Structure formats: C-alpha cells, structure tokens
C-alpha cells in the first residue's frame, strides 16, 4: 500500500489539470448542454493525444496498460471538471469487455481504435424493468441463423450511445445458457436509436433492435462467461464513476468554501455564521469519507466477484450518501443563486445525482451490501 502518486500518475494529473481547468466552467458546460452530442469532439481528440484513451488499454493493443488506480485518478480529475465525454463507456466499460474477449480478432483492433480516439463504443444492456445491479435481466434475443445471429429486442438508458460508433449489446442466445455480448455498429440495419440528454448534459438512448442480422464474429463473448465479464466491466465503470463523484464533491466543497467567504448578508460574510460553518464542516467530512471509500473499492477491485461486489457496494453507499449531503447543502449555502444554471454548484448537483444512479442506485447497493453483511 502506498498513498503517494507514481510518476506516471503525477504526469497524468498535471495534464488533466492543464486541459480541464482551461476548458471547463459554467459557460462551457452550458454550451455542451446545447451541443448535439453533449461534448466537444476537439476535446475528445485531446484526450487521445494525452494518452488518456489508451490508459487502461493493454500494451499489445497500443495502450499504456495502466492500472485501475490510474484510471480512478484520471476520473477524479474528470469529475472535478464535470467532463461530459463518454470516457467511462468507451474506455473503461467497452475497453474491459473487449480486452476480455481478446481472442476475437476484431477486439484487439477495436481496442487500438479506442486508444487512438477513432472509435467510441457504448454498452446497450439495461432493459425496462430489469434489476440494474444483478445485470441478468436480459430479455433481448439472439437467434442463430445462417452461421450468424439475428437480434431482436429493446434497450433503454444506454449511456453515451448517441455518440458511439459501435454498441456492445447483451442478448440471450436461443438454446444456450447465459447471455452473449455482441458488437453491433450503431448505424446497422434494424437498429433504431432514440437519443436524449440526461440532467448532467451527457446523452443516453433507447435502442430498438429489429431483426438485426450479424455475422458470427459479432459475438464477443458468450455462455456463462459473458455475465462475469459484464459484471467485471460494470464494476470498473462503477469505480470510475465513483472517482468522478469524489472529484465532483471535492470541487463542490471548495466552491462553497469560497462562496461563503464572498457572499455578505447582514454586513458580514455568511461564512461567519456558525450555521454555515457547520454545514461546510459536514460537507468536508462527507467528501473525505467518500474518497476513503473509493480507496476501499480500488483495494478490492481484483478480488473474486463476491468480495469485490461487497466492497463496491459499501463504497457506493458512502459515496452516494456523501454526494447527496454535499450537493444538497451546496445549493443551500448558495441561497437563490444555487438554483440557477449560471452558478457552478447546480451543475455539480445534477452530475452527482446522475452518478449516484448509474449501475445501481443507492437503494440497490444498500440492499446488496445488506445481504452480504448479514449473510
């Protein structure tokens, strides 16, 4: 165990500081909200130039073989700056699934394209009414036909799908156990993408698949292994999102700290009121505990599934609670200004709300961790 940052990590954070603090802020976020994809292609290209898109990608595929800690540190920075790029979907989630299915020829090539910034992939897994945490609620079907497959079904809330060139789609393969994960071009015949913005200006989509005919090698991974790979990938994505939440919270706490030293009422700065001081102290405690639990999740990231899942849910609980406390009080100390789109704190609020609900919300993680605590 070593809490000090490695040279690579320091370099990573320096580059993040330079790119993100220059190009972020309320004006930028508001512009992205109105933009077609919710982020700027030029910045995605910069992510590639800085090596961020290659970070966890294996060296054999042209990546940097970075660790999950490296990924988390970068995501803390992305969270501080409320970056809306589809980093987690493409690099962390799809990247991991492709890496685990590296036997398939196309997978290595796709990883190389991800690292180079020329390919974006989104996961299309969630179905209406399915349990977002167990990940086994797949009704979508893949029928074997003519040496390939035909996909039918519907997905909702596929994060970052509107900007993705390819989709990783989960489906039950007829006559087989488990599920299969398929790589499908988003513009493929029979694929209908209905895009919409989320509260934090990122984009998601509902996707209908009608008789989508795929070649055999579109199946990245199948059988009982597929669900395990999907769970690993989602857990890593969840860690990256937690890191973003920690970054967002720490930034929000700082913003509030400055605000209460500037805003005056009754002839004094509002930070001189003990009521306000105690709120800020609570926010600080929460953000501190949140980072601690990110570390707990990271420390257990490579453990067998049950232990990894328990650590992850414990972290999601502490970080989810902290996100609520920090974002709600963040608005409260801002008074009316906290309710506008023109102050940063409201943007942090919305991002933290989204991060709290992706890949299982607080209620789901409480239930799962409760189950393992009392098992």
């Amino acid at each position: 165990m070593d809490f000090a940052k490695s040279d690579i990590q320091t370099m990573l954070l320096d580059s993040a500081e330079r790119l993100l603090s220059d190009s972020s802020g309320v004006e930028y976020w508001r512009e992205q909200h109105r933009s077609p994809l919710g982020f700027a292609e030029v910045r995605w290209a910069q992510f590639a130039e800085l090596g961020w898109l290659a970070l966890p990608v294996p060296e054999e595929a042209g990546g940097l073989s970075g660790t999950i800690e490296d990924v988390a540190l970068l995501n803390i920075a992305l969270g501080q700056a409320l970056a809306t790029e589809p980093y987690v979907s493409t690099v962390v989630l799809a990247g991991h699934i492709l890496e685990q299915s590296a036997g398939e020829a196309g997978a290595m090539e796709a990883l190389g394209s991800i690292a180079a910034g020329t390919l974006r992939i989104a996961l299309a897994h969630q179905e209406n009414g399915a349990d977002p945490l167990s990940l086994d609620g797949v009704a979508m079907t893949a029928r074997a036909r003519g040496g390939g497959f035909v996909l039918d079904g519907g997905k909702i809330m596929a994060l970052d799908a509107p900007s993705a060139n390819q989709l990783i789609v989960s489906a039950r393969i007829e006559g087989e156990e488990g599920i299969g994960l398929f790589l499908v071009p988003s513009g493929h015949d029979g694929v209908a993408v209905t895009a919409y913005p989320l509260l934090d200006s990122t984009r998601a989509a509902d996707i209908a698949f009608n008789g989508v005919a795929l070649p055999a090698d579109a199946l990245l991974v199948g059988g009982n292994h597929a669900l395990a790979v999907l769970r690993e990938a989602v857990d890593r994505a969840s860690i990256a999102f937690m890191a973003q939440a920690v970054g967002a919270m720490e930034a929000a706490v700082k913003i509030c700290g400055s605000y209460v030293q500037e805003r005056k009422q009754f002839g004094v700065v509002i930070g001189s009121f003990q009521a306000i001081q105690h709120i800020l102290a609570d926010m600080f405690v929460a953000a501190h505990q949140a980072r601690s639990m990110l570390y707990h999740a990271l420390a257990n990231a490579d453990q067998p599934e049950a232990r990894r899942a328990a650590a992850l849910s414990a972290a999601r609980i502490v970080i989810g609670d902290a996100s609520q406390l920090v974002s709600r009080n963040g608005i409260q100390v801002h008074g009316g200004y906290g309710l506008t789109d023109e102050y940063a704190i409201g943007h942090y609020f919305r991002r933290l709300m989204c991060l709290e609900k992706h890949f299982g919300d607080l209620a789901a993680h409480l239930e799962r961790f409760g189950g393992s605590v009392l098992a």
Partner: protein
Amino acid sequence: MELRLDPELESFRQEIRTFINDVLPPEIKERQRTKVLNNATVPDQNEWMRILYRHGRSVPHWPVEFGGCGWSPMQIFIFSEELYAADAPEFDWGGTHMLGPVLYTYGSDELQDRFLPMIREGATNWAQGFSEPGSGSDLASLRTSAELVGDKYIVNGQKIWTSGASHCDWGFFLVRTDKTVKPQLGISFLIVKMDSPGVTVRQIPQINGDTHLCEVFLDNVEVPAGQLIGEPGMGWTYAKFLLEHERTTSSFIYWSKRELDRAKEIARGESRGGRRVADDPAFRARFARAEADLLALEWSVLRVLAHEETDTPEAAAASVLKIRGSELQQEITMLQVDALGEKALRFYEASPVAPPPSEAWPDYVPGRTAVALIARAATIYGGTKQVQKNILAKLAFGL
C-alpha cells in the same frame, strides 16, 4: 379537548369535490397533471381563476365584503386540499394571497377599488419584487430607491428571484423612500405596472431547465405616487404582515399530499428485477416515514389554524411548519426521483404538452426530476432554513 373531525366538514369536502369536478375543464386538469415545468401553463392558471371567479370562489379566504366566501379556516383548508388533489392550477399567489390581504388591510379605498377586482377576477398576474442581489436573507438592507418628484415616484434599482415576472402585468415592490432613517423604517410598498418605461425583465435559466425566476431592472421608472400602499416608511410592517398572513400555506401540506400520492403511483408502476418498487422494503420504510411525517405536519397546521394556546409565541409554530414543510417537499420529490431510479435522470425540455407516453416512459416520468430540483428552493425562499432556525431559537428559547 375533542379531536374528532367535525362531520359537517366531511359534507363540505364532498360538496367542494363535486364542485371542482364539475367546473375544472378536463384538458386543463390533464395539462396540469402532465406538464413538464411551471412556466408552461400560465394561460391555464388564468383561465382557472376566471372560472373560480364566475362561481364566486376565486378568493375564498378574503373578507366577504371583498369577495370572500366567509368560510372558516378549516373550510379554506379543505378547499385548498381538494384543489391540489384534483390537479387544479395554482392561484396567482402574488395577487390572491400576498398583495390582496395587504390591500384590503392597509390600502386606501381608492387602491382597493382599483386593484382588488382585477385580482379577484383573475384578470392580472402579480410579481413579488422584494429580494435584491445583495439583499436576500437581509431583506431590510434593500437599496432599490423611490424618490418622490411632484406626484410621481422615480424608481431605480434591481430586484432578483422575482417569480413569474416575465408574464406578470403588475408587481408590488419594496422600495427605499427614506435613506436617513433605520433601514426598516425607510421602506415603502409600491405597486408598479410591469410594462412601465424603464422596467426590464430578464428570465433566469434555472437548475431544472425552467426560466420562471426573473431579474427586474428598474431604471428611472415613473410610478404615480398614489400607487404607494398605506403610509410611506411602513413597507416593512406590511411585508411582515404579508409573510405572516400566510403562515400555514408555507407548509405546502396540500401540495406535499398530492405529490406523495404521485410518488405512490410511481412506486406501483415501476419494477426492478420483477419486484415493484412499492414492494421493496426499503422504499416501504421511506413511504411510511413520509406519510407519518405528513400526518404530523397536518396536525401542526390544524393547531395553528385553530390558534391553539401554547406557551410559545404562535410565530414559533409558523417556523415549525416552514421548516418541516420544506423538508418534506424535498423528501417527497426525492422519493419520486428515487422510485424512478435511473429513469429520473432523463432531461425534458419545458413544455405544456407532455411527450407521448410509452411502456418504458409512462406519463408520470416527465417533470418529476425538474420539480425535485427546484424543490431545493423550498428551504431557501420565504426565509431560509437557517434563518427559520435562528427565529425559532429566539422565539422558543429567547436565545
């Protein structure tokens, strides 16, 4: 003490329910139920006021001589509760619940004759111009000035958070008419026509995509001196009267009841992994707590309505209602959001027409999160939670 509900009130409730059902146009009710955001339904609100007026029920809480219904506080309570339960549009609060009472209590006959009918008939929308960029919790420090020149006041300054100002015809403003005295004593209460030359309104983009809040800039605005209510320098007293007059409505009890019902509808409609949210023990616990807390709030409201004698000033109970009422609005709207799960994250543009529902996206989805976001304001407007606690500490404990 005898706490059972008066049976006559039950028949009154039935009468009101039937009345609303008869006169509330179904299309307005439907738009209210499914609207995405506030600004979208102002015309419906005005239409509804006119309908109520035709039936003599647009301002039931006013004295009879000004158009009120002569109902008891309990009857008014039931009327409001039924309006919310039926998804009726809101009142034009600024006119009916804020300015109206100030006018019939302190206004001259002339001002009463001129303005009370407009409000009562639903012909106008009213903005409340109190807060300023530098004067929120410390309202008495407000700086917008009104200088008497001949028979006109010349008004200069800026207001902020003026709800709905962009669609209001008139506003009532707190202005400083005397800079030489103690801040509270130099404030007056002035009626300003919003289309007067020199008035500029800017809509503020909000956290939830709405633009209901506004900034109002006043640049050498000429206002007839006769539009000053009561005495110059008494504005602070009138403003305090206004805020205290509506003690029990600050609890938002009726609104919260309806929204809790809506949260239940969502919990029954949404499933995760084959289990309805309504059958999830964790959600059931939250619903149970919200329902119990709402019952407690309701009894607290009833105690204030009945002017129950206690050994603390009644204003302390008003702060109880404001604090708990605002917290409950936030909990109940977050309960809706949490019951929707990840679906709550979808952003909907402000629109009077709800997007067509589908199996995955029933009509209870659009608008819920937008309301939950703006509900963060419940602990900010009308005296922040911190300020309410300061007041309570003083009133209840003399601290």
